[in-house]
């Protein structure tokens, strides 16, 4: 069935299932997946990594953040990079799931609830990464007592919390609607609100950086729309990977046409993202001066590997997604993973790049708290990448990422995420 013939179908695309003759077989297979040892092992492994991450986090808190590579002149690192990345990654599921329902058009088959579950898992990981970055996590209550509502960070905390609650509510609403206990109008209203919130959450995350006049590389009005487009890229790519993976595992059945539709969308999103990148590079480089310095740092400087992985990865992803002959499952997953890696590289460029160029380019005596590579001259410290995470940071980050996986796997196991008619 072509996607166009379903154009008028209303919100409940989960019911619009294109392989009815396989329903019973799939039903047996998918309940087997839920009970399968593989899922239990995955849950066990992620839980173990979460516990290890927690132990490392307590080590960081008790021994001090001197154990990270962050210092006064490069004061954010892998945690905030990961935060940006996971906020972006959380977009796809919710948007893929809510856009069709909000607009009343045909959706993407039975992946709607699984996609929202991936959003919830990514949002939790994003919040977790901010928490491990905080020096005083036990003072987090102050955010609600002494809120400075003028701070972009405060906006982000409010929007992220709303986003997480809304994602959960939206998932619940879908389950209720399938059980016939909620009207489609109500479901549609929730999906519109969730969609608006999803766009806001990326914009506000961008504003944490984009509103800073102090950092040449961050201070651009393009940053918010660009964050939305990057979020769409890696979020859609994640949904493609999850859809192919779960279909292969027999958790759900998904017609290939839905996957093709997702791939086309992904291709379009990647092109928009690359276009924004091109606009930004040209605008920075054209007047010369310090903007040209930023472009040189990205294309040929210390951040070049991350720049080129992003450009080549995203371009390759677009080629695979937009060439009908190449839209084979293996290639689509590879292309999606490339796009996700590319967007992660973009986050690294943005974060490290912000600190890579010193505003006050004056030599001064450095010590262990000034900058990561302080044993040398200031020029030495800025020659390579100004920041590279320590093993502790990798460990803590891995723990938080595992928490995201754990939540997702638990969702697969215990929540009714499969299409309702199976």
């Amino acid at each position, binding site marked *: 069935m072509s996607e166009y013939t379903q154009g008028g179908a209303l919100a409940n695309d989960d019911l619009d299932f294109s392989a009815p003759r396989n329903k019973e077989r799939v039903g047996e297979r998918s309940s087997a997946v839920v009970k399968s040892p593989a899922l239990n092992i995955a849950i066990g492994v992620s839980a173990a990594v979460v516990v290890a991450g927690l132990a490392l986090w307590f080590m960081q808190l008790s021994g*001090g953040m*001197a154990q990270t590579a962050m210092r*006064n002149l490069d004061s954010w690192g892998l945690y905030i990079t990961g935060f940006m990345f996971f906020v972006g990654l959380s977009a796809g599921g919710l948007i893929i799931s809510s856009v069709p329902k909000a607009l009343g058009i045909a959706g993407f088959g039975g992946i709607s609830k699984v996609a929202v579950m991936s959003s919830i898992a990514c949002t939790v990981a994003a919040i977790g990464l901010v928490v491990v970055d905080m020096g005083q996590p036990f*003072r987090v209550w102050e955010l609600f007592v002494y809120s400075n509502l003028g*701070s972009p960070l405060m906006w982000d905390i409010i929007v992220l919390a709303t986003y997480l609650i809304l994602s959960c509510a939206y998932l619940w609403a879908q389950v209720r609607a399938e059980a016939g206990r909620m009207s489609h109008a109500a479901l549609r209203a929730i999906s519109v609100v969730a969609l608006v919130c999803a766009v806001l959450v990326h914009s506000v995350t961008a504003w944490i950086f984009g509103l*800073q006049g102090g950092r040449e590389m961050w201070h651009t009005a393009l940053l918010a729309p660009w964050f939305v487009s990057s979020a769409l890229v890696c979020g859609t790519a994640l949904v493609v990977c999850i859809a192919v993976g779960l279909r292969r595992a027999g958790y759900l059945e998904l017609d290939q046409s839905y996957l093709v539709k997702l791939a086309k969308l992904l291709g379009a999103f990647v092109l928009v993202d690359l276009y924004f990148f091109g606009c930004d590079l040209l605008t920075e480089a054209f007047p010369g001066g310090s903007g040209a310095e930023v472009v040189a740092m990205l294309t040929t400087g210390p951040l070049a590997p991350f720049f080129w992985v992003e450009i080549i990865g995203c371009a390759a992803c677009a080629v695979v997604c937009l060439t009908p002959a190449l839209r084979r499952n293996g290639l689509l997953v590879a292309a999606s993973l490339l796009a996700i890696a590319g967007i992660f590289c973009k986050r690294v460029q943005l974060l490290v790049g912000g600190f890579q160029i010193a505003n006050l380019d*004056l*030599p001064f005596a450095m010590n262990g708290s000034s900058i990561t590579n302080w044993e040398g*001259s200031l020029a030495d410290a800025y020659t390579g990448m100004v920041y590279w995470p320590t093993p502790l940071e990798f460990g803590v980050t891995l723990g938080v990422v595992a928490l995201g996986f754990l939540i997702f796997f638990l969702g697969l196991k215990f929540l009714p995420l499969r299409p309702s008619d199976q």
Partner: protein
Amino acid sequence: MAESKLVMLVDTQRCIACNSCAVACKVENNLPRDVWWNRVMTVGGPHLDAPSGTYPDLEMYNVTVACQHCENPACVKVCPVGATYKDPETGVVRQDYDKCIGCRMCMSACPYNGVRSFNWEEPAYHLDFPVGDQDVAPHQKHVVEKCTFCWHRLAKGLAPACVEACSARARIFGDASDPTSAVSQKLKERSSMRLLEDRDTEPSVYFLR
């Protein structure tokens, strides 16, 4: 509108980069190991008396860099809990260690690299006993700190420690909203510059040329 506007003037024709101000600051505020709120930078290079420019158009001067106590502080805007705030009566940008959640948003926002420092570990000291003024707030692990314009001294009607310790008498401190004050007079007499004026932060530290 601030009742007074405390500013610091540094005469670049007098400063010899002796670092007395940096040391006085460190002692007065009992700064932990590796923490310097105030640093002296020679514009020409990492060595004392390094000239800047190319021969024969050479210049030789130093700038001292600490919190600029901006009139339009980027850090105050972004702090999610108001741990860094502007004192309405003096214009001094203050930092409340007990409130700071250690998110380091202010460090990203501040264009003056390195004037804000984070205590990356439990504050450690070279000496076994505290030095400086006993009214200085105790240093805490995992919070951001910076120059306070010696708030504890201002409360007693004294100038910041760096002003007192400057052997070349290059530093002048006072109220710029009072036209008769020494700082207002000097700013009228001499040409001056501020760091990164293009960032619109309106710093309260002036360098006399």
